[in-house]
Structures are given as structure tokens and as C-alpha cells.
């Protein structure tokens, strides 16, 4: 009996961690290329609403996930054109993207409020009836496995491949990379495309897997937590995995306390927990003996124009 409860808590933890992991992984690649996209929350919301709208109209969660991916890339492209081609301020543009995502998702979602869809199912349905241990390993949905595979892939790409090295070079010293002949702007476009796709997918995970119904501002600031996680991870994919699951644990604890009716703390105090934890984590990072910030890409947030 207790193992069943443990497995169900584990499933909640994995589900809560997955969208932040995806969004943060995308942003990590973007930041490694020297671009700071503060619009993650906005991209997630457009992905969430596009995924829900398509899944609702077609009845297929798979189509919803693809739509979210496309919507995420399209939204991120607005950011890319403004910051890369028109050299607009990255912080201001990222904020605009978030405000846009909140407005656009609420406008498109207005017709879907309260509607429900079939939740994204497990990748291996047979595993659910098996041994609890089997369920804990194989009982998740496809996006969970995809997110874990992507951590490995991104880590390998950045540290062990030539294109990954070039991407990092662009983020560390754009002028030198340009001088050797690398196409700084094109590489940054590619990175932002990847980040947009993952943020869109992360958003759809909220509307298709976590809460299979539409509500305004569904992602509740998780995009911002993803941004903080990149700092926490010191721009390393493996540490990102650890951080995302730590946050998943905080959020699961919040849910468990609520479900158990723990009244030591008011529910509002529990709702504050992820945000306070983010501030605490950011503070601890800078208190550490070797400041994590030293690992930040040197050209992060600086506009580049070739001339």
C-alpha cells in the first residue's frame, strides 16, 4: 500500500518537474548562444493555448503537442526578429513577449474556458497494471521521456560536438566568432528556434497533461522559474535536471500538504513556496564559494551587429 502511495507521489513529482525542465533546457541553449529571452512565460502560454485549441478541435493530444511546438517557434521568432535583426533591447523585448503571451492566450482561450479534453496518456499503457516499480519507471507519458533524452542530447551537443562548440563560442565572444567567419546571427536564430519549440511544448504540457482544461495564465509564472533554474544550474544541463526535479518536489509537497488538509500554514503561504524557493536558490548560488555566475556566457544579453 505504501509503495503505491510513493509511486503516485513520484508520478506527481515527475509531472510537475517536466515542463520546467523542458522550458529551462530550451532557454539554456538560447543563453549559451548569448541571448537572454525573458519571454519564456509568454511563449509557454501561446504553446499552452495552441496545444489545447488543436487538441480540443481534433481530439488528438499528439496534434496538440505539434501545434504547441509550432506556436512556440512562431512566437519566439517575433523575439528573434526584433532582437537579432532589429537589435532591439533583449530585456524589453522579452518582457513584451510575456505580456503578449498572456494577452494572446487569454484572447484565444476565451472560447475554451472550462472545456476539458482527454489527458495525455502514458507512453506504455501496459506498464500501469504491473509492479509498482515498473510503473514508476515506465508509467510516464512520452513528453517525460523526451525531456530526459533531451537533457542528454543537449549536454552531448554542447560539450562534445563541433556545432555545440561554435554555439558556445558565439555566446562567449560574438565578435571573435564573427571574425573567424561564423554566422553569429544565424546561429542565434537557430538557438531561439530551439528554445521556442521547447517552451511551446512545456506550455502544452500544462494544458494537455497536468490540467487537461483551459484557464487564463495557466502556467502561473513557471516560465520565470525556468529562467531562474538556468542560473541555478550554472548553464549546465545535468544540474538543470537536478534543479527542475528539486522544484518539482517543492510543488509536489505543496499539493500533498493541500490534499492532506495540513492547516499549520495557510494555503496562501504554500502557494508562495515555489517563488520564495526561487529567490532562496538564486541567493544561495551567489553565496557559493565559486560563484555560479562566473559560468555565465560572456555575451549574454548583449546585442550584436556585424559591421
Amino acid at each position, binding site marked *: 500500500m505504501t509503495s503505491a502511495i510513493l509511486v503516485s507521489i513520484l508520478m506527481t513529482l515527475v509531472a510537475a518537474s517536466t515542463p520546467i525542465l523542458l522550458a529551462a533546457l530550451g532557454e539554456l541553449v538560447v543563453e549559451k548562444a548569448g541571448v537572454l529571452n*525573458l519571454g519564456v512565460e509568454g511563449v509557454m502560454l501561446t504553446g499552452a493555448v495552441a496545444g489545447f485549441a488543436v487538441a480540443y478541435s481534433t481530439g488528438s493530444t499528439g496534434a496538440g503537442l505539434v501545434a504547441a511546438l509550432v506556436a512556440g517557434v512562431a512566437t519566439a521568432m517575433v523575439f528573434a526578429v526584433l532582437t537579432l535583426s532589429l537589435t532591439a533591447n533583449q*530585456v524589453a523585448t522579452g518582457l*513584451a513577449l510575456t505580456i503578449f503571451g498572456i494577452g494572446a492566450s*487569454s484572447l484565444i482561450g476565451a472560447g475554451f474556458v472550462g472545456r476539458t479534453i482527454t489527458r495525455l496518456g502514458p507512453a506504455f499503457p501496459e506498464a500501469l497494471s504491473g509492479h509498482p516499480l515498473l510503473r514508476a519507471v515506465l508509467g510516464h507519458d512520452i513528453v517525460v521521456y523526451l525531456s530526459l533524452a533531451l537533457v542528454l542530447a543537449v549536454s552531448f551537443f554542447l560539450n562534445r560536438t563541433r556545432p555545440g562548440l561554435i554555439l558556445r563560442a558565439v555566446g562567449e565572444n560574438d565578435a571573435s566568432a564573427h571574425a573567424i567567419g561564423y554566422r553569429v546571427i544565424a546561429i542565434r536564430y537557430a538557438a531561439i528556434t530551439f528554445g521556442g519549440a521547447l517552451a511551446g511544448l512545456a506550455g502544452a504540457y500544462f494544458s494537455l497533461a497536468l490540467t487537461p482544461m483551459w484557464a487564463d495564465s495557466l502556467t502561473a509564472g513557471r516560465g*520565470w522559474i525556468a529562467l531562474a533554474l538556468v542560473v541555478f544550474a550554472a548553464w549546465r544541463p545535468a544540474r538543470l535536471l537536478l534543479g527542475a526535479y528539486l522544484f518539482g518536489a517543492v510543488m509536489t509537497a505543496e499539493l500533498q500538504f493541500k490534499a492532506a488538509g495540513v492547516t499549520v500554514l495557510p494555503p496562501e503561504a504554500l502557494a508562495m513556496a515555489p517563488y*520564495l524557493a526561487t529567490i532562496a536558490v*538564486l541567493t544561495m548560488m551567489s553565496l557559493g564559494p565559486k560563484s555560479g555566475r562566473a559560468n555565465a556566457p560572456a555575451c549574454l544579453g548583449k546585442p550584436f551587429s556585424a559591421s
Partner: protein
Amino acid sequence: MLYASPLIAVGLTMLIGTFVFTAMGYDGLHAVRDIFLTPFLEPQRWPDLGVKAAPLVMIALGLAIGFRANVWNIGAEGQYVMGAIAGTGVALATHGLTGWWILPAMALAGVIGGMAWAAIPAFLRVKLQVSEILTSLMLTYVAVQALYYLVRGPWKDPDGFNFPQTKMFSAAQTLPAMAEGSLVHLGIPVALVIALVAWLVMEKTTAGYAVKVVGLAPAAARHGGFSADKVTWASLLAGGGLAGLAGLFEAAGPFGQLTPQFPTGYGFTAIIVAFLGRLNPLGIVFGGVVLAGTYVGGEIAQTTVRLPQAATGMFQALLLFVLLATDVLVRYRIGWKARAA
């Protein structure tokens, strides 16, 4: 060109908005006319315009100081809520009392509440190099939860039929109207005076100059003896204090109490106001009026062409996008490129 680009941006937003909303199946032309023109053409809308512009202008004035110095306080919404909470605390403690001093005491509490909330990201950035962008935003979520807790718990009006809201403020705790029965309250002239003072400080004093140098050329600022830390502290405290005052004015004005509906997003919209105003205090008054127009006009369009309320937010974001894009016109001159022979 520097001052033309906000006007071009407003024009382009109207054009794009017409196409987008027509494509979505609404009467796009009518919607754009109602959002950008009707509020300014009908004098009976002007008081409402002023009431909505005042908090936007006050918050944006504070934010713009920081943006000039590369201090990105995006948590004004939280400071606005904290200011309202602190001021309401004074109001609940002085309920039943009368006296001229009550409202100033509430205003002071509002300023201090907003400043205290902004002091956290300021401290973390100056002492520990933690990015103020993320901390100030995270604190917004915390402030909103604190508000929910107070109005549902300790501050709930015992005679309020169990609604999550505080007592209504008394006459001595409410902002006086500028004319009998008018919506226009004291907050509007106060916002204008603050804009003038901010302009004087930014343009005519060494402190304002220090803010600009730290933002534009940090190395030169260090060399010239301007302290980046002091500028960070000052701009976050100014931003927090003004947002807190705006929050208190909103609580003691249009709301007259605290409710869970209190956080309306003015703190985020003020970011657009600051950019539309070119981070210039007098420009911000213009930006505040334009954005207030989108709120008032958005409400008009809800009844005339059944545009959803969320459309207002999308128009506001569209405006910021277009503005950032047209800024290219400020930085570069468009010209014909001579073909290489």
C-alpha cells in the same frame, strides 16, 4: 525621430490591430477606433482616462529611472500591492478616527511598503549580485498571495457577508474628489506634480545625470566617481515607493477597500508606458494617457463590437513590440545603399 517613433508606433499598432481583429472575425476598424480614438474624442470619458492614467504614470516614472540605469525592476505590480497593503493596515488601525493626518499617514505607509518590497531585490543585487529581474518578479507572486491571505483571513470585514474583502475605508481615509461627485481624485494632480519633479531631477540635477551615466557607460561612471550601487538602490527605492503610493491611491480611491481583484496588472502595463514615453518623465505622461485610453477604449469595444477583455492586453503588447521595432528608426537612418560597381 526620437519623439516621432512613439507616434509612428501608435499608428502602426492601429493598422496591425485592424487586420488582426478583422482576421479573427471582429469588426476590426470599429474596434481600433473605439480603443484608440473614442476615449479621447468623447469628453465624458476623460475623467475615467485620468483615473486610469494616474497610477500608470506614477509607476512608470519610477521604473523609467531604473531602466535608464540598467536596473530592471519588473516587479512593480508586487510593490504596488505591498503599498496598498501597508496603507490599508494604517486605514484599518485608524478606522473610526477622523483627522487630516490619516490620509497622509496612509500615503506614507504606502510609500514605505512599496520601498520595503523593492529593497529586497536592491539588497540582493548590490550585496550578492543576484539579478533583480527575477527576484522582483518572484516577489510579485508573493505579494499577491499575501493580499489573498489578508483579505480572506485576518483583515476580512466581519460585516461583509463572508466576502473576502476588507472594511470600506471611511470618508477620512478616502482620496477627496476634485469636484463634487466627480471620479477625478487627488491622485491625478499628484501624478502630474511627480512627473514634473522627476523631469527636473533627471534633467537638471547631478543625481539624474549619475543615473544616465551609470546606464550608458558603466566604466565611465566608475571613473567619474559615480556609485553604481547607490544608483541601483536609489532607482529601486524610487520605483518601489512610487508604485506603493500608486497602490495606496488606488485602494483609497477607486477601490475604497482591498479585495482579491485589486491586482489589475498596472505594474506590468506601466513597463509599456515607460518605453512609450521614451523613459522621459514628460513623455511618460503622454504614454500613460495612451495606455489608459486602451483600458477605457477596451471597455467601450467590449460593448460595441463584443471584443473580449483580453484583447486590451494584446493591443498593449502589440504596441510595445511595434515601438521596439520602430526604435530602429531612432538609431539608424534609412537610406539607399549604393550598389557596388
